[in-house]
């Protein structure tokens, strides 16, 4: 069990500079929680205006993509900062689906035909796997290739509704492959059925393909590798979104218990409340270290990416759910109402914990990577 030289776990100046305009100009102004509560039950749950701004105004939809392919030529560290801020706002934009999962797949496959459009945020892309799919599972066979057309149904795909391009894992006679489906060209051979999702700020949909025209992006073992890279990248980066969720929960709860009075005292002066928040503070600082560690490994192309991504998911998923659950409890009655946004964060926290592999599955994966085998 060798330790790599310690990665830089801090935020660098570029990352700090990225964070402020995002938090101030975009999320606080354009995505207040009142509007969010209205939006999620409307016909258009995604915030297309915010998504446009992330691409056109701030240029953060393709941070990890080289400049020659229309990206910012930055890296995953910067992407992670955006995810922290989007998590902090439970912003309903397809960033994780398009700028992380689909982009990671396109880059791993050197698929540059649609990459510039995706990187610029002009066309959102989605990786057509159930959102619960983590790395290390058998290659999905829900979609079959016949000729150059795909048929089958993929359930519970995240960020599929706003997507114009799908990346679909499918199995044909020649084995597994990853295929590009242009929805403009596919017409009614592809249909999307929204699902009611626990996380109201990240809609899911079932995608059905009926002889949908598709072009191959990666085939055979390469398709397996590309899908694994995309899911591992997603798992590593999801931890940063989760961190943002936890930070909102902690910060908001601390502020609330300072204001809320019962028994003639701020609720936050009661030792039981203070101690619980102190423990959550510890949990969130640990989650931050673990999330930064995973992102640094991605960015550096470390051979320990899988280990560190699983470590991050194993730790952060439970830490964030615990934080969100405590946030609701410490808000008391108001936290249990629909009008207070804390339930949106709880739902995001729990859904994120199921996304891209549960903590349980990541622990199992990690155990093998660090030579702690199960009982025979």
């Amino acid at each position, binding site marked *: 069990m060798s330790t790599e030289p310690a990665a830089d776990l801090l935020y660098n100046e570029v990352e700090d500079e990225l964070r402020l305009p995002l938090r101030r100009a975009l999320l606080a102004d354009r995505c207040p929680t009142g509007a969010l509560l209205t939006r999620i*039950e409307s016909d258009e749950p995604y915030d297309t205006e915010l998504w446009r701004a992330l691409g056109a105004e701030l240029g953060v939809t393709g941070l990890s993509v080289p400049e020659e392919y229309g990206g910012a030529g930055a890296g995953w560290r910067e992407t992670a900062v955006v995810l922290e801020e989007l998590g902090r706002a439970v912003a309903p934009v397809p960033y994780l689906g398009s700028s992380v999962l689909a982009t990671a797949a396109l880059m791993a496959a050197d698929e540059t035909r649609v990459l510039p459009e995706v990187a610029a945020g002009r066309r959102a892309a989605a990786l057509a796997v*159930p*959102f*619960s799919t983590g790395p290390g599972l058998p290659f999905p066979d829900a979609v079959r290739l016949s000729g150059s057309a795909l048929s089958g149904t993929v*359930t*519970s795909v995240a960020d599929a509704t706003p997507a114009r391009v799908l990346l679909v894992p499918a199995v044909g006679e020649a084995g597994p492959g990853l295929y590009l489906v242009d929805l403009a060209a596919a017409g009614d051979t592809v249909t999307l059925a929204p*699902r*009611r*999702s*626990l*996380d*109201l700020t990240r809609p*899911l949909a079932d995608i059905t393909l009926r002889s949908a025209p598709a072009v191959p992006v990666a085939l055979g073992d390469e398709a397996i590798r590309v899908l694994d890279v995309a899911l591992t990248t997603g798992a590593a980066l999801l931890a940063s979104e989760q961190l943002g969720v936890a930070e909102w929960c902690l910060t908001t709860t601390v502020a609330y218990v300072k204001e809320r*009075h*019962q*028994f*003639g*005292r*701020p609720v936050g002066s*009661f030792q*039981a*409340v203070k101690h619980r928040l102190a423990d959550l503070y510890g949990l969130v600082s640990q989650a931050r270290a673990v999330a930064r560690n995973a992102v640094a490994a991605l960015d550096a192309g470390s051979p320990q990416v899988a280990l560190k991504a699983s470590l991050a998911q194993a730790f952060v998923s439970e830490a964030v*759910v615990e934080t969100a*659950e405590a946030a*609701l*409890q410490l808000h*008391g*009655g*108001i*936290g*249990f*109402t*629909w*009008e207070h946004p804390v*339930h949106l964060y*709880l*739902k995001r926290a*729990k*859904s994120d*914990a*199921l*996304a891209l592999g*549960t*903590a*349980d*599955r990541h*622990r*199992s994966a990690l155990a093998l990577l660090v030579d702690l085998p*199960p009982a025979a």
Partner: protein
Amino acid sequence: MASAQPAHSARTDQVWTADRLRSAVHTVVSAHDPATTDPVEFLGALFDAGLAWVHFPPGHGGLNAPRALQSVVDDELTAAGAPPRAPGLHTIGLGMAAPVLLAFGDEAQKKRFLRPLFTRQEVWCQLFSEPGAGSDLAALATRAEQDETTGDWVVSGQKVWTSVAHEAHWGLLVARTAPELPKHQGLSYFLVDMRAPGVEVRPLRQATGEAEFNEVFLTDVRIPDTHRVGAVGDGWKVASGTLMNERVAIGAGAMPREGGLIGGLARLWRERPELRTAGLHSPVVRAWVDAEALRLTAERLRQQLAAGQPGPEGSAAKIAFAGLNQRMSGLALDILGEEGLGYDDWTFRRPEPDDDFSTRSFGFFYLRTKGNSIEGGTTEILRNVIAERVLGLPPEPRTDKTIPWKDLPR
């Protein structure tokens, strides 16, 4: 179950034995076949025979008999085919309004309210909690001012977490009549007509999407002084009596093994082998162990109550149940994985009384059980109660009990 000792009524020399009560039940049942009689009429006959609450006074649904003999009546009624006394909509009426009226109501109030309450003709709700007064109920701000000419009370304020307010005829209300006194001393207790002008009931939507509870807005609602219960300023004393009755009502019935959420979790594990993982097995078995331990604890509590030695374990069991329910529903979502990402119904609606709770998704339970550690006394408050009242640990230093309510920081 029946006591062997004779009991004397306060009014006469009459001695109530189990046998005499059985015969009284038999008389009512003979005259009003429960299978064919209109429920209101049947319940009215029971009330008039003094079999509603045998320990209540004659004329008010009782016989001044020992309270322990009520179970004889209930067993006999069940045997005779009377419908079970499931309170449903009438939980507050039967569990809180009736005992309060018995303990603190005047003759006229008992006369007016007890019979229609028992016959289910009038539904009751409870107007206690407020946005600013949750755990600290005594800090409530709803104001009642007396109109000096009519003697009526004029009430304004907002109440929350009110079950069945939209169906209720009457509300049990605590309001502040003297803001210049320390908070416990300036409260009075009223019966408020829920159909009176100025009462507005709005559904209160929860994290689950639906609205089990209501907010009640009171704007210059007039309450005649005859609907005040207890003396002016005695509101806290009356309300505390009511809350105690609420606590006694918790956890009374025996539960079968795998009753409650553990049943659903165990079924999920048994019926969906493809979802099982090595890592989730131990949490499932732990949940089973903890659920069974709690079931046995509740059973032991029930046996203590039956033996006349009520134990203080109830609050501790409520804390543990809340935590366990939250843990089990979260675990079920972990087991479900992809299916756990979905939800069954976000519709903003009031649940129907006959909604089949068992058909709801684990996602619903995951959200709904978050309320278990808030409603009916937060886990934090119950821990204080156990520490101070059971273990005898000293209270924290407090100042809010002595300074005028209007001067409290908030």
